[in-house]
């Protein structure tokens, strides 16, 4: 191959994102007659999220699936798609991130030298698992010691809901849940399954409290160096694979619920209104409207309706 592109990600090889990324790599090799080879490195093989972000900026890797909160450390506007209880369903998500809100975010990435493919990939809505009680409404979250990935948005969300968010490295989460250093954690179902968190948790409350997805970002210099027709081939392969991955994940989430139930996790569904009211009362939406700015906020509300 004339050009080898490295794609680093943090997900297991069996995750739909890696399966579709490998298919995209094969398609790119085929359509460029082997001129472009994409090497996929799953499982944080090339580093943790923050380091892969710095690698994709410098060109150590070419492609990175940047989680919305990870890349928010570089372009804060990215966190806007993670606002608590903003999206009621996937239709709202995709119309926002494929549309004006996504364009706004991708423009911010371009400003820091990253090219971004138009289609985001899905990580899933985040759900809460606990070892001590099912979460049915905001009252159940009171003083709950819950592990949250460190991000201003995630922490503010759970503080506003009255919980006690705790920062822990992901590698420590399994043990911390087992020994009850913390009682709860929140992640999309696919992570609950792959990290085996169901082995140390009893309840899974489908709160859908925050949507999480991946921007496929590309090192700016290495993108500019691609010939135009190759750019088209690579873009098409990644964007179409992204759409397929969205469908995969949706199906996966349905089967996961049954699978995890069989493994002893007790599921319950929740309604968003109570949580939203609590957030409004705590001034959460107002605070974040201020942080993101009125323009971006009104683009968000244009899709999901009034929040603040």
């Amino acid at each position: 191959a004339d050009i080898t592109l490295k794609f680093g990600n943090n997900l297991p090889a069996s995750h739909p994102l890696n399966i579709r990324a490998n298919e995209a790599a094969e398609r790119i090799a085929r359509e460029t007659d082997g001129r472009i080879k994409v090497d996929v490195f799953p499982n944080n093989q090339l580093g943790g999220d923050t380091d892969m972000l710095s690698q994709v900026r410098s060109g150590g890797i070419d492609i990175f699936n940047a989680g919305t909160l990870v890349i928010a450390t570089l372009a804060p506007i990215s966190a806007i798609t993670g606002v608590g209880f903003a999206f009621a369903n996937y239709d709202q998500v995709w119309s926002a991130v494929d549309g004006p809100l996504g364009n706004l975010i991708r423009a911010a990435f371009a400003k820091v030298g990253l090219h971004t493919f138009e289609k985001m990939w899905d990580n899933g809505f985040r759900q809460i698992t606990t070892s001590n009680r099912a979460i049915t409404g905001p009252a159940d979250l009171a003083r709950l010691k819950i592990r949250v990935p460190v991000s201003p948005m995630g922490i503010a969300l759970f503080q506003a809901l009255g919980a006690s968010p705790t920062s822990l490295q992901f590698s420590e989460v399994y043990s911390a849940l087992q020994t009850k250093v913390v009682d709860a954690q929140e992640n999309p179902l696919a992570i609950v399954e792959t990290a085996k968190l169901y082995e140390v948790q009893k309840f899974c409350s489908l709160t859908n409290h925050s949507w999480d997805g991946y921007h496929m970002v590309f090192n700016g210099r290495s993108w500019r160096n691609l010939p135009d027709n190759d750019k088209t081939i690579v873009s098409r392969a990644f964007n179409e694979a992204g759409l397929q991955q969205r469908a995969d994940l949706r199906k996966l989430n349905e089967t996961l619920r049954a699978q995890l139930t069989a493994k002893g996790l007790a599921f319950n569904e929740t309604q968003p209104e109570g949580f939203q009211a609590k957030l409004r009362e705590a001034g959460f939406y107002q605070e974040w409207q201020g942080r993101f700015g009125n323009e971006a906020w009104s683009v968000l509300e244009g899709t999901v309706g009034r929040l603040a």
Partner: protein
Amino acid sequence: MAGHAASLTVEASKAPLGIARVAVAIDRVLGGAVEAATAALVAIEVIVLGVGVVARYCFHAPLVWSDELASILFLWLSMLGAVVALRRGEHMRMTGLVSRVPPRLRALLEVFALTASIGFLLLILPHALEYAQEESFIVTPALEISNAWRAAALPTGMALMLAAGGLRLMRSGTFWPVVLAIVLTALLMLAFWLAGPVLKPLGKLNLLVFFVGVVATNVFAGVPIAFSFALATFGYLSLTTSTPMLVMVGRLDEGMSHLILLAVPLFIFLGALIEMTGMARAMIQFLASLLGHVRGGLSYVLIGAMYLVSGISGSKIADMAAIAPVLFPEMKKRGAKPGDLLALLSATGAQTETIPPSIVLITIGSVTGVSIAALFTGGMLPALVLGAALWIVVWWRYRGEDLSQLARPTAPEILKLALVAAPAIALPFVIRAAVVEGVATATEVSTIGIAYSVVAGLLIYRRFDWRRLPHMLVETASLTGAIIFIIGCATAMAWGLTQSGFSQDLAKLMAGVPGGTWGFLGVSIVAFIILGSVLEGIPAIVLFGPLMFPIAKQVGVHEVHYAMVVIFAMGIGLFAPPFGVGYYGAAAISKINPDEGLKFIWGYLLALLLGLLLVAAVPWISIGFLNS
């Protein structure tokens, strides 16, 4: 640091030149300032983590910023600790070959170890500056400050290491060896740079050229291990790939500030505290009264103690740091050879890899889909089997030990010693309980041990020498710097290997080995011993686990069984000289020259290997206790 013979021995001049005298004066000021800073950082780390535990456990008000602050300070601690280690010549290195060459060549190689290190620092410093600059655009998620506060530790530490290295050259008071070593270093680098265009087309063969050839040459020439890894990685990435070199700095950053490793300095400090407060003596006197009349008795205690504490801290080297200061002085007094102690300590590191809650098991579970709970259950007995293998070697080695002078203590004497030792013996149980009861995470638990030791030292044993504290803190920082800097460089090296994509080729090769189940297990053992050695343990699992576990399933090996086999193989590689990072960690912790352990470790490694073959041959040992 007496007896720490692993150090570089460029001695201060006997008849100092004028320049040497000036260098000594500057070094004293600069070195003093850096040492004071590192001592403060160790103390602050203890406080930050301690406050974090109290806030979460006692007040149910977790501090979301304490981990991030601890991690930023940890990078500073490790980098500045590496400066102290360089200044004192305490970066681990192999001097077995260097000490056998003629005196003139030896003098040259002694200086070359330093000039080669300086050469690397000169090459990397501009990229470290660029890296820190790039990181200033990142806002840290918890404290919401510029990430330059963290990243600046890298160029700062490197610049200070350069200064310390330069001052050492000047302090050496010799002339020709210094000039020759500088010229030699420059020529070698020039030669590699000129050879670049020839090397590049070699493709994956370069992995052998750099990660076997260059690493081995440097290691055996006596260049510190960390710098041997770093030079090979820098050479490989800069000459044969288009990787921007700030990526290497990023890998150092991530490898050195991993929060789990924070247990290393804290357990080193805890070990020193146990010794200073007299708790170690109380413990050892009691154990000696029980087992003193058994040949090799304290070696059995060492194996047992590692089995018990392993998995508490999440870091093997940290586990060792709590044990070595307690047992080693007494064992040496009884005539044990330091090399044998180092060898046994390192071997127990490999032996205890599968004891839960091991980070290795959690990693395997996460990257391969095997149940972590099943791995936790499955790991207990295999570790016992390998422990028994080590016991046999100990029994054999100490079977002729002369214990005739030792009087066997009477029961009342033992009881009295037990009472005195009780508060000290309680410490490991307090620590274990704090983890099991969820008071603290693996990383934080050392602060509870430290708090307990301070209280016990002040109130129970009434021995607490405040004047020794600064020295203990600096010592901790220097050791931490030496150990963590090796890990950082190994992390960068692992990245270089990984990005080449060699794992796919190797996995295909391994799947093609004939002999069905047994052939596959055999080739896995050989491969993971080598991979564990060059990839610093866990990266080997992350890289090869997902590739190998499906093949294992195909040839009919139970996943939990296979996990145990590859973890031990990886562990043997990790704790075996001459490349295993774990071996140098054990040497640093026990303050014993890595050369001394060489003669003794092969017996233990052979025992571990035989134990491993047994675990591989009898699946029941790994899966006999699983539920389904």
